[in-house]
């Protein structure tokens, strides 16, 4: 990241902090906004968030690291979430998970070496009657067997 990028990133964070300052319980909404804009919450932003919301840096860091949804590093181009909860397990999600690790070339919470993918376990997408469920970016997919998962990944590869 060059200095211009870093500057605009910081400007954006400052703007969002200002937007949420004074709102009751504003830390989570602010962190969501930052992650929605940048894809992650840079460690460098902790100090300005803490100052803006009158919290300690430890409190901000504590919240970011407590919640599974928040990430401190940039994700791959496509975030692939595979549900590993019981309803999906009952229809083969563990086999699907193993296939995902192989096809994407990364393990849980990792990015693939080429930066294309992040693989995340998720515990329930609410599609339990149409399991196994997978989410790629914003798009949900139901009844994903191994063949369907392979097709979905191939589509991402060929679009790249």
């Amino acid at each position, binding site marked *: 990241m060059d200095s211009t990028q870093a500057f605009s990133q910081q400007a954006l964070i400052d703007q969002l902090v200002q937007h949420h300052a004074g709102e009751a319980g504003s830390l989570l909404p602010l962190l969501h906004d930052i992650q929605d804009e940048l894809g992650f919450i840079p460690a460098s932003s902790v100090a300005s968030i803490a100052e803006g919301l009158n919290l300690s840096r430890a409190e901000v860091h504590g919240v970011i690291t407590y919640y599974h949804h928040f990430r401190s590093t940039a994700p791959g181009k496509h975030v692939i979430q595979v549900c590993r909860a019981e309803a999906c397990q009952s229809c083969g999600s563990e086999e699907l998970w193993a296939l995902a690790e192989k096809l994407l070339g990364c393990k849980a919470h990792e990015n693939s070496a080429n930066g294309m993918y992040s693989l995340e376990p998720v515990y329930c997408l609410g599609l339990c009657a149409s399991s196994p469920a997978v989410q790629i970016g914003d798009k*949900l997919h139901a009844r994903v067997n191994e063949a369907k998962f392979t097709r979905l990944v191939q589509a991402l590869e060929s679009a790249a």
Partner: protein
Amino acid sequence: MTITVFVPCDSAAIAAGADEVVDAIHKEAAARGLAIDVQRNSSRGLFWLEPLVEVLTAQGRVAYGPLAFEDVPSLFDANFLLGTKHPLCLGLTDAIPYLAKQQRLTFARMGVTRPTSLDDYAAHGGWVGLKNAVAMQGDAVVQTLLDSGLRGRGGAAFPAGIKWRTVRATTAAQKYVVCNADEGDSGTFSDRMTMEGDPYMLIEGMVIAGLAVGATQGYIYIRSEYPHAISTMNTAIALAESAGYLGSNVLGSGQAFYLHVRKAAGSYVCGEETAMLESIEGKRGLVRAKPPLPALEGLFGQPTVINNVITLASVPIIMAKGAAFYKDFGVGRSTGTLPFQISGNVLQGGLVERAFGLTLRELLFDFGGGSRSGSPIKAVQVGGPLGAYVPESQWDVPLDYEAYAAMGAVVGHGGIVVHDERANMAKLARYAMEFCAIESCGKCTPCRIGSTRGMETIDRIGTASNKEQQVHLLRDLCDTMLNGSLCAMGGMTPYPVLSALNHYPADFGLAPAVATAT
């Protein structure tokens, strides 16, 4: 003449390809010069049939499904806009046995109306409960709720009216109504369907709660895994406010009620009410010790009504039709209906709203049609990841809170996850401990440490030579977790673990005598 076609916008329908079906219908209709009006309705909850497309005919709505976009041209070839026969035609929607056998009170509009249409909501019985409540004293509203016997649908089954009465009786400058929409249990989706499919029902229930207890601010805490629900609720709140159902003067009552959506961030334990309050306040989702009860000192330290989505969504019909009407459904102290959610390895997964008192066997076979794989059903987890595995010998016990508690199980939020004979119950028991270790907030030791020790002990039952001692150790650990944990996360993880051990000892490599000896 323009013909109305309905395609659900529920995220489970979209995940099954509903958007692609809509594109294909538009394309095909345009190519054939046919005038159609495609309405995106909510889902009927018959998920094995999604995308389920309906056509409005003189006889009623005729259903087709499950459709793939490739099927669309053949539907037009068969003149489906007139409700004609096609291999995927299911006949009149209301006559589909899965639906016809249900008692839909809370889910009466589901699959019928467009989620954010105020006209549709009002035309199908919406706001009647709120109008009645506005005309009543707060005490009378609370009494109606008490009389209905409505108990918390989130899992704990605490009488909703008692919470409301406590908050109403407490004096404070600011009170809150918080809706727990952190539906993290695997196998449950009734909250999601409600928020995506009938958001005004939830809003109406929350406004009634606010007026009854004197709260002017409400929060809906929705899990981040439900982006469609978040977006639908936000749209519905804005529209309801502009129509006067929310805001500074609810329906001219002189009382204010404002509603906000709070997006969660992927922590299962934040479904526990006090952890949820911490999260809304912007903190780590650590469970609070009780007392003080949230009804006295809840959100931001103020008196707070906390109810689950389905609890609040059940309020409008109670206020519209009266406590006696609602109480007529159900058995014993389990009054009313519960939207059961059948999922996992089952042929016909979906939502079944029925009065309490039916059996698991009816749900599994009369509705569910048996396993999806065709293999025999081995175990059924009822009530989410913290619920017990129920073996076949208990499938005829009526589903009500007391009957399930008596056999060491829970009805919970009504989620039912089916496993066929390939399931390894020792592995699922280990998973329960692993899930607890991943999701524990870490505040109390039995949950934080016990879950990890539990995984290790279950591993050792599989590998060690002194299996009997390991089983004894596991039971002792479960006893500590059950009785020593601060909340249900650690306190109920033993339910799936012990039920698996008790009913399926062979999966742990144990003879039945060893599993139950200690």
